[in-house]
């Protein structure tokens, strides 16, 4: 019990870094391996959230609010990206009836 308590009180910074790195990597792998535009997009969001988590951790660790403010910016701009991105995906879907990026080969890679 006490163990749990102390652990909850002070998770070392390294763990945050590892966790974020893992989440970030999952996002990267998702982007690289998935073929569905929406899933790719979600993977990107995962990457951003890994960043947010880490920034917050650093911010608390350094006792500097700038990091958390940065998180706000990331969230706001990620939202803008979401808005635009989803609109683009819908636009593509309406033309192709698919969100698989494999159909995006009219222009060769």
């Amino acid at each position, binding site marked *: 019990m006490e163990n749990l*308590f102390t652990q*909850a*009180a002070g*998770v070392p910074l390294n763990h945050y870094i590892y966790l974020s790195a893992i989440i970030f990597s999952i996002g990267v792998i998702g982007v690289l391996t998935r073929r569905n535009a929406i899933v790719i997009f979600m993977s990107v969001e995962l990457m951003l959230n890994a960043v947010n988590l880490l920034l917050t951790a650093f911010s608390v660790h350094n006792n500097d609010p700038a990091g958390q*403010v940065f998180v*706000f910016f990331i*969230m*706001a701009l990620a*939202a*803008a990206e*979401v*808005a635009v991105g*989803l*609109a683009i995906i*819908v636009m593509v*879907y*309406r033309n192709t009836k698919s969100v698989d990026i494999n159909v995006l080969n009219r222009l060769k890679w």
Partner: protein
Amino acid sequence: MQAQSSSIDFLPIIFQVIVALGFVVTTLVATHFLGPKRKTSDKLETFEAGIKSVGNARQPFSIKYFVVAILFVLFDVEVIFMYPWAVNFRTLRMDGMIEMFIFMGTLLLGFIYVIKKKVLDWN
């Protein structure tokens, strides 16, 4: 100004989540075993006002809903900038207020644009 919350403060919330989750799962499992099981194919079809259902329900729906969703994402996220300002309103004083009013003005410009573009007209 106000007390910093540490991770300990969130521990009880986790307790509550555990309790709620336990309740939900237990109940779901329990009803699964308690109820009678007499399945017929008619029963397992989707019910659409007694008419035979046609095609998959997961079709594209009106873009209006979609636009609302996008607008929500934008506006809701912009609102989060106001929370820190509101909490620190008395510390930031006049400067903060003017800046936030400019921010809100910009937001309003976008809002008026959206309305003018008749995005939010439902017919």
